[in-house]
């Protein structure tokens, strides 16, 4: 099998990532016509009919992270998603698109990532659905001007070059506290976006460059302070937190657009119906 999608689903006490992965696999089949494999520490909880391959791993270690469910509610739960760094070793495919389980595919744009010769593709810019929010932390990972990349979605070929890249990711992960200081991230917890950004910066020769090419299409995102209200096929309806007014929302909708839904609770509520 040459092309496919890989996702990582490690449930925690509050969030059912496997349920999200099943929805993702359905949409991958529909829009990209590709098989999906899932990497999970609980293979016995996975419905095999959704996936091409179920790849078991040990329970990964993670951070505790605050997850919001709209403006008013939040919980602190374990975030076990460092496994994607091992994508190169785990994937059964020659060319692999790795996607977060909370990405809702609504078009076939990402199909084009398999029609290029680029060894590694990732989004440098994603688009917030609101017009009023500015997220400078999604431009640069620190004040030194190192560009931010979204580890939410990336596509790679198995080449000698990408092997170096993924080995570099492991080195950064295994020595996180050191490299977090080197890259002036303060005492921040491990974050996939940051470690990918750091590695791309190194692959670029410690400067701005284009070793990592942009993934096709646009990935939109909503924050965990927003709510996913309805999924109607390729149409999604959101409640977006208003600017400067806590607890109030603006109604908004998308159609045929891929959206990264950070509010996993509202996503799960709709998938559970």
């Amino acid at each position: 099998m040459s092309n496919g999608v890989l996702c990582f689903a490690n449930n925690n006490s509050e969030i059912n990532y496997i349920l999200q992965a099943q929805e993702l696999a359905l949409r991958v089949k529909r829009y990209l016509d590709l098989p999906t494999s899932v990497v999970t520490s609980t293979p016995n909880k996975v419905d095999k009919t959704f996936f091409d391959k179920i790849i078991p791993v040990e329970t990964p270690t993670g951070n505790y992270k605050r997850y919001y469910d709209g403006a008013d509610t939040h919980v602190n739960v374990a975030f076990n998603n460092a496994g994607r760094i091992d994508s190169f070793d785990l994937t059964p495919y020659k060319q692999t698109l790795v996607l977060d389980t909370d990405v809702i595919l609504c078009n076939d744009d990402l199909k084009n990532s398999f029609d290029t010769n680029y060894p590694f593709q990732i989004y440098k810019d994603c688009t917030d659905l609101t017009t009023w929010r500015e997220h400078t932390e999604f431009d640069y990972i620190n004040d030194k001007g190192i560009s931010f990349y979204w580890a939410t979605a990336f596509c790679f070929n198995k080449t000698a070059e990408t092997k170096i890249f993924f080995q570099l990711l492991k080195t950064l992960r295994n020595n996180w506290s050191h490299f977090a200081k080197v890259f002036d991230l303060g005492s921040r917890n491990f974050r996939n976006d940051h470690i990918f950004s750091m590695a791309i910066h190194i692959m670029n020769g410690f400067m701005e460059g284009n070793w990592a090419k942009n993934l096709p299409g646009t990935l939109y995102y909503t924050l965990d302070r927003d709510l996913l209200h309805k999924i109607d096929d390729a149409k999604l309806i959101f409640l977006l937190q208003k600017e400067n007014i806590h607890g109030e929302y603006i109604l908004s909708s998308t159609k045929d657009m891929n959206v990264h839904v950070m509010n996993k609770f509202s996503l799960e509520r709709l998938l559970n119906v």
Partner: protein
Amino acid sequence: MDEALKKALEFSNFTATLNTQKRILHEKYLGDLVMYSDNGKFTITKELLNFVYMISNNSSKTVLIDDNNTPIQINDIDDFITKATQQYTDATNKYLGDYKTLSTKRSVEGLVDV
């Protein structure tokens, strides 16, 4: 709540949603303008269309720099022009249609077609 203030707040919600939906439509349009051809990624602009049309008068091949700053050999420039023109037309017409539809809506629910 005072009736005038209530109406103003309702209108404010309508305007905020309208602006958000307009912006989403525009972002969608920009995405629809991206074309993949000859292993390259090209955002179709009026300038690109004019440039390739001008080049096609003297040559059937050219090299274009794509969105990833990669030089791409275009072996059949006429085919490229046909595909790019079609995609540009389709995307722009769709944008026009969606924008017109949005403009006729008079309620927040109508704007997002709940």
